[in-house]
């Protein structure tokens, strides 16, 4: 199929019709260029939203207290549901597939935090060690709350970077003691959460310490867990099970959506991903449409070329060219033109994307437009296929040329 001689033959004919070849090449290159740009833009959009989501664990389920809205087994509607440590333990024990789980006890109000002469008000959350993975808390120094801290109700605190800056200025915070509402806590770690400023102004305490010191008994405000590698269906089942366990423990109707509020981000995330799936299909449809236009152009021009070359083909046949060698010649020329020009379009498209991703600052809805290798390779295969399709009809027409008719003197 591939040999230098044949390419020499093709170069000869291509050189003979420079303008025609250029126009053909342009239509194919343009099609691929548009496809690459569209796909890159789609990926950029997707990357932007994905980044937006990645600030919290995507597969997390958040359970918040509510008020019953339906009477249940003689109990009135309007009851407030109060979670406890036992709810946390029960969920942890009975729901399979949980990756990380934590409960939260909020210390409400702006709490006055002091270090030496500095003071400022910050929010406080007491939580379990695994909470770190639920919020995407990025530790900068020291460590997060551990199991021992919770067991022994240690008076330790992990502080956000804005808390650190406000209280310690540029001084070393780890190991120092801060006062929280007059009670002394040892700083064991500092953290940041790049996407969330509210988080940066937070202080984390061990849940047991928080409950004891701030008079919470065994009360819990929020329970959250992640579903790990579970599929969306499994995640939905876990959510349902959590609801039914809580309904049983707190005597409310499972169908009472307002008794507890359960939110999970992965459902929202999946919704977005489905949207992107749709956008991607849309992009491929447009891109392939553009390429099809290119193919039709190539096919059309090859058809004209075959008509113009009828006599030449007749001569070749008289000299001993088999129909196959004629088909081969036309088809190879067509594939050659589409692949070379398509490749040019591909390179150009990728180049433009590179420049855009380098000089256009990433925003919430657009970052890193890119094309992965499989797509690029796929596009090239598509081109070869396109070349075959484009060359097929002209090649067949060429093979059917009868030498006696072609050589007939006009």
């Amino acid at each position, binding site marked *: 199929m591939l040999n230098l001689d044949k390419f020499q033959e093709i170069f000869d004919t291509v050189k003979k019709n420079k303008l025609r070849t250029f126009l053909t090449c342009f239509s194919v290159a343009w099609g691929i260029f548009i496809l690459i740009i569209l796909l890159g833009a789609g990926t950029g959009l997707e990357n932007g939203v994905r980044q937006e989501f990645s600030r919290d664990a995507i597969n997390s389920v958040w359970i918040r207290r509510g008020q019953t809205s339906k009477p249940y087994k003689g109990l009135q509607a309007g009851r407030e549901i109060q979670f406890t440590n036992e709810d946390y333990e029960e969920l942890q024990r009975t729901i399979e597939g949980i990756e990380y789980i934590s409960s939260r006890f909020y210390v409400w109000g702006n709490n006055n935090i002091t270090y030496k002469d500095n003071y400022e008000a910050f929010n406080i959350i007491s939580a379990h060690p695994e909470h770190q993975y639920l919020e995407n808390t990025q530790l900068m120094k020291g460590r997060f709350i551990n199991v021992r801290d919770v067991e022994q109700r240690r008076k330790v605190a992990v502080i956000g970077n804005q808390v650190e800056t406000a209280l310690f200025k540029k001084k070393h915070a780890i190991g120092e003691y801060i006062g929280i509402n007059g009670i002394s806590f040892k700083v064991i770690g500092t953290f940041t959460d790049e996407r969330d400023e509210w988080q940066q102004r937070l202080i984390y305490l061990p849940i047991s310490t928080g409950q004891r010191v701030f008079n919470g008994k065994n009360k819990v405000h929020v329970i959250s867990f992640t579903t790990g590698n579970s599929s969306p269906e499994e995640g939905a089942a876990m959510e349902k099970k959590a609801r039914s366990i809580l309904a049983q423990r707190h005597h409310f109707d499972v169908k009472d959506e307002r008794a507890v509020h359960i939110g999970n981000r992965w459902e929202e995330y999946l919704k977005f991903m489905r949207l992107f799936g749709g956008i991607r299909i849309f992009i491929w449809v447009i891109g392939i449409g553009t390429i099809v236009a290119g193919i039709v152009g190539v096919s059309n021009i090859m058809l004209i070329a075959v008509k113009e070359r009828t006599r030449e083909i007749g001569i070749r046949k*008289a000299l*001993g060219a088999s129909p196959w060698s004629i088909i081969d010649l036309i088809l190879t020329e067509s594939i050659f033109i589409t692949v070379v020009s398509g490749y040019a379009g591909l390179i150009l498209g990728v180049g433009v994307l590179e420049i855009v991703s380098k000089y256009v600052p990433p925003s919430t809805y657009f970052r890193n437009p890119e094309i992965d290798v499989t797509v690029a390779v796929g596009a090239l295969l598509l081109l070869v296929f396109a070349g075959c399709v484009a060359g097929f009809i002209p090649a067949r027409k060429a093979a059917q040329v009868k030498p006696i008719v072609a050589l007939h003197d006009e």
Partner: protein
Amino acid sequence: MIRIQNLNKSYVVGNTEMHVLKNLEVHIQAGELVSIMGSSGSGKSTLLNIIGILDSYDAGEYYLDNVLIKNLNESKAARLRNQLIGFVFQSFNLISFKNAMENVALPLYYQKVSRKERNKRALAYLDKLGLLEWAEHMPNELSGGQQQRVAIARAMVSEPKIILADEPTGALDSKTSHDVISLFREIHQTGITVIIVTHESDIAERTKRVIQIRDGAIIADV
């Protein structure tokens, strides 16, 4: 070399059927120099096309080099043409975007001869025909006589057993025509069978045997 028995061929033109060749019998030995004469529409070109395996026939038999040529598929016909037959046409039929050497080398391309070897052999034949210095020229830079000599070199380069010439002098002046016919006589001397189709009697007179055709039948064979 060529044995044609009871050959019949008709074309359908519109609604009427034209019986072009009627029960034709032709035998040509290897190494003959033959001309086929007839006015236009006599069927002589059709006969040449059938001999050249460019056209099919309806009934009868045609043996070329003791091989029955009947209902061949195109690939096989192409191979036989390439191996056994060299063509020379009235309008030369050189490929316009190839130079003289490349035109001559083309039949060897379809014999899968390497490029270097092809060009070497093509140059040798151009040299034989006194065209070596024109090897790099394009057909439109050559005179009619030169083009026809390039075409003859192309017909000979694959060392065929038969050379078929269809009105080879039709587009040439009488002086050049004379030279071209001399060339065919020389080729004939080397043992190759040469068949020339013509309607000019002074061309036919210079061949060893003249077959006259009228209305699809042989009227004289001397």
